[in-house]
C-alpha cells in the first residue's frame, strides 16, 4: 500500500494555499504535517480526504481496491467530533461502526466495539449521553472510530488536542499499531505526538504569499 501525491495545487477563497506539492507515503509509515498557522495543513488533509477538489495534481492510493473510491479507504478525525450529544457513548460508536465498517456479523462487531471503548477508557461511560463528557473524553470518543471500522489511511487533524498526557501516549500506541500493521497515518499537529520514527512534512515554506 502506498499513497502518491503529485503536483497537488489547492486553492481556497481564490488564493492558492498548496502550490505544487509532491510527496508519497508508504504503508507502515506515519507522516506528520507541521508549519505555522495558516500554512495549509488542514487544507491538505481535507484535500486528501476528497472534501476539497484540487485545482491540479493527483492523489493516488496503490494497493487499495481500484474499483472503490479513495475516500472509502480513509478515516478522518478533525476538529469537530461528529458525535451526537443526545446519543449515548455506545450508540454513537455503534452507529459509526455500522456506517463506516463492512457491517460484519453481530457478535464480532459487538466485541470490536467494546474493545475500542475499553482501549480508550470509555467503557465505564458507555451508557452516558455524549453531552455529559468532558472535552478530552469527547475527543477519545471520536478516536474510537479509528478502531471499530478497519480502514488503511488515517487522516488526523490535530488529534491530540485536549487529550491529557496518558491519553496522548495511548494515541501514540494506537497509531503505532496501525502503522506496524501496514497502515498509513497522516497527522497535522503543532504538538509533539511522541511517534518515534515519523517522517515530517513542513508546510508553508514553499508557499508563495499573494
Amino acid at each position, binding site marked *: 500500500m502506498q499513497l502518491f501525491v503529485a503536483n497537488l495545487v489547492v486553492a481556497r477563497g481564490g488564493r492558492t494555499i498548496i502550490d505544487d506539492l509532491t510527496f508519497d507515503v508508504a504503508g507502515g509509515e506515519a507522516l506528520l504535517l507541521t508549519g505555522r498557522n495558516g500554512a495549509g495543513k488542514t487544507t491538505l488533509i481535507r484535500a486528501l480526504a476528497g472534501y476539497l477538489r484540487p485545482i491540479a495534481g493527483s492523489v493516488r492510493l496503490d494497493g487499495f481496491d481500484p474499483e472503490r473510491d479513495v475516500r472509502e479507504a*480513509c478515516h478522518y478525525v478533525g*476538529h*469537530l*467530533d461528529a*458525535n*451526537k450529544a*443526545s*446519543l449515548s457513548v455506545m450508540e454513537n460508536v455503534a452507529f459509526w461502526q455500522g456506517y*463506516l465498517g463492512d*457491517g460484519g456479523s453481530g457478535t464480532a462487531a459487538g466485541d470490536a466495539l467494546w474493545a475500542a471503548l475499553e482501549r480508550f477508557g470509555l467503557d465505564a461511560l458507555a451508557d452516558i449521553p455524549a453531552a455529559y463528557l468532558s472535552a478530552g473524553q469527547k475527543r477519545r470518543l471520536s478516536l474510537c472510530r479509528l478502531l471499530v471500522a478497519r480502514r488503511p489511511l488515517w487522516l488526523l487533524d490535530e488529534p491530540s488536542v485536549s487529550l491529557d498526557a496518558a491519553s496522548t501516549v495511548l494515541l501514540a500506541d494506537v497509531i503505532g499499531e496501525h502503522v506496524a500493521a501496514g497502515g498509513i497515518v497522516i497527522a497535522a499537529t503543532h504538538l509533539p505526538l511522541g511517534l518515534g520514527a515519523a517522517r515530517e512534512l513542513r508546510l508553508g515554506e514553499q508557499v508563495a504569499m499573494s
Partner: protein
Amino acid sequence: MSGFMRLLRRDLLLAWREGGALGTALGFYLVVVALMPLGLGPDLNLLSRIASGILWVALLLAALLSLPRIFETDADDGALDVMALGTLPLELVAGAKSLAHWISTGIPLAIMAPVLGVLLNLEVRAYPLLFATMLAGTPAISFLGAIGAALTIRARRGGLLLALLVLPLYVPTLIFGITAINAALLSPDGFAASFLILSAISLVSVVLGPIAAAAALRTQME
C-alpha cells in the same frame, strides 16, 4: 442492516430524543392555522370554503421551518464529513435524511391537519381526502426541501433564504393538493386525476431531490 437503514434509524432516533422537534412543528402548525381566522374574520362559511387552502399553506410553512434540521446539525458537528467517507453514496445519505424528515414531520403534520380542520369548520367529508392528499403530497415537501436545506447550510440567515428558495418549488404540490380536494367535494370522480398528478410530483421529487441535494452537499464541504 444496510447503511441506509442505519442512517434512517439514527435520524429518527435523534428526532425522537431531541424531543420537541416534532412537538414544535405541530405547535407552529396549530398557531398559524389559528392566526388565519383572526386575520380573515370569524365568518364560518368563508372559513370552511377556504379551509383546505389554509391548511395546505400552513402545513407548507410549518414543514419549511423544520427543514434546516435535515442537514444543519450534522454539518455543524462534522458528522456530514464523516458520512461522506462511507460506502453509501451521498445521494442515498440525502435520501435517508429526507425520508427521516418526512416520517418525523410530514406524516405527523398530515395527521394533524384534519384535527385542525375543526377550527376552520372544514366539511366533515373532506377529512379523509385532506389526509390522503397530504400523505401523498408531503414527500415532495421533504425531498424538495432537502435541496434548499443543503444549499443553505453555510449561508447566513439560512432560514429566510431557504424559504425563498424552496417555496416556488412547492407551488405545483400546493396547487394539485388543493385541486384534488376541491374536485372531490364537487364531483366524486374529479379527485383521481389531481391525486395522480400529486403522487407523480412526489415520486419525481423523491428521485430528483436527493440527487440535487447531494450535489449541493458536495460543493458545501469545500
